[in-house]
């Protein structure tokens, strides 16, 4: 066989083999979370490279090696699901580097990390001061995970005692001008609803590049023609404004009327509307 034909055949064979091996091993292999997968990952890669271009050698030896590495990794993955001690041995354990805001020099030495490397890893997490860190561990993969001290963490609605409404994931229901029926079903909407919404916004389906519906059933579109302005959904903020206006109106009526009974009625209802506003504000403001 001519050499280049040989390389051609080998390339395709190994491409297919590697594809299947990674398919079997799954996403875990790709993320290389444990060092076992890291090792098998590089080895499989270099064995394949060697077997493709090393024409004087038998191709099947390379395939055998890859199959063994793949199967052993798969086997290890299955066993480590069952046993914690084996998992610690095969996948490695995280090492604590900083605890209670103090650097643990012993552990640093054990993993052979210098203080420069530690600060470099922390800097990649946008942490420039050791003092800000409450707890940091070195993951088996070699990345660092750091927990900041309470006062240095980003502010969340919970810190402010704000009640946030639950929100479901938005569904992409139009891609490249075609309707995604499955996503449409998950959003609980029909084609009829979609065509009405599109008509309301005065756009045709062909012109839509991307269309998403959020958990309130509001449709956001991106068009091919970027010169056309699509109004962003504003139903909810508008509703909040209308509610506020109504509340103000009711209060004005209660001040204007001379009828005692009516005054009471207006006051009571103004209060009810105010309570409704308070309750709805998290849902209605964007």
């Amino acid at each position, binding site marked *: 066989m001519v050499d280049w034909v040989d390389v051609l055949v080998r390339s395709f064979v190994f491409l297919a083999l590697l594809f299947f091996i990674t398919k079997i091993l799954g996403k875990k292999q790709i993320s290389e979370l444990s060092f076992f997968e890291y090792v098998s990952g590089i080895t499989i890669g270099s064995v394949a490279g060697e077997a493709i271009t090393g024409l004087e050698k038998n191709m099947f030896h390379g395939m055998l090696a890859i199959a063994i590495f793949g199967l052993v990794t798969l086997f290890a993955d299955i066993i480590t699901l069952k046993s914690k001690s084996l998992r610690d041995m095969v996948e490695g354990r995280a090492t604590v580097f900083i605890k209670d805001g103090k650097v643990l020099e012993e552990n640093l030495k054990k993993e052979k990390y210098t203080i420069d490397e530690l600060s470099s890893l922390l800097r990649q997490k946008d942490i420039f001061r050791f003092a800000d860190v409450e707890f940091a561990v070195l993951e088996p993969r070699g990345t660092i995970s750091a927990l900041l001290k309470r006062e240095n963490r980003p502010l969340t609605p919970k810190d402010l005692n704000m009640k946030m409404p639950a929100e479901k994931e938005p569904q992409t229901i139009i891609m490249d001008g075609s309707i995604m029926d499955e996503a449409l079903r998950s959003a609980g909407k029909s084609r009829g609803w979609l065509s009405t919404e599109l008509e309301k916004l005065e756009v045709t389906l062909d012109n839509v590049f991307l269309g998403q519906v959020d958990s*309130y059933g509001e449709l956001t579109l991106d068009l091919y023609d970027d010169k056309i302005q699509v109004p962003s959904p504003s139903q*909810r903020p508008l*509703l909040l404004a209308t509610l506020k206006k109504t509340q103000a109106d009711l209060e004005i009526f209660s001040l204007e009327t001379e009828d005692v009974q009516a005054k009471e009625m207006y006051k009571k209802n103004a209060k009810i509307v105010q309570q409704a506003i308070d309750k*709805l504000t998290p849902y209605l403001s964007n």
Partner: protein
Amino acid sequence: MTIAANVKQCLSTIKGIEAQLSSLALNSVDEGAKDVFHTTMLTIVDVKKDLQTRVLELERLEPQYKSS
């Protein structure tokens, strides 16, 4: 504008709010949001009823502003 006309306008705004809340309750996916929209809609209905009686009273007091 007279008071009666103002109250009528407010009444129709409230009707609009009720309709929008009910449509939001139907269109939302999240159960919690659905529930909040629905219960608020029900309280708004009570407000609407009170205003409706008030409009009738005003029409009785000021028949000249009665809508045809």
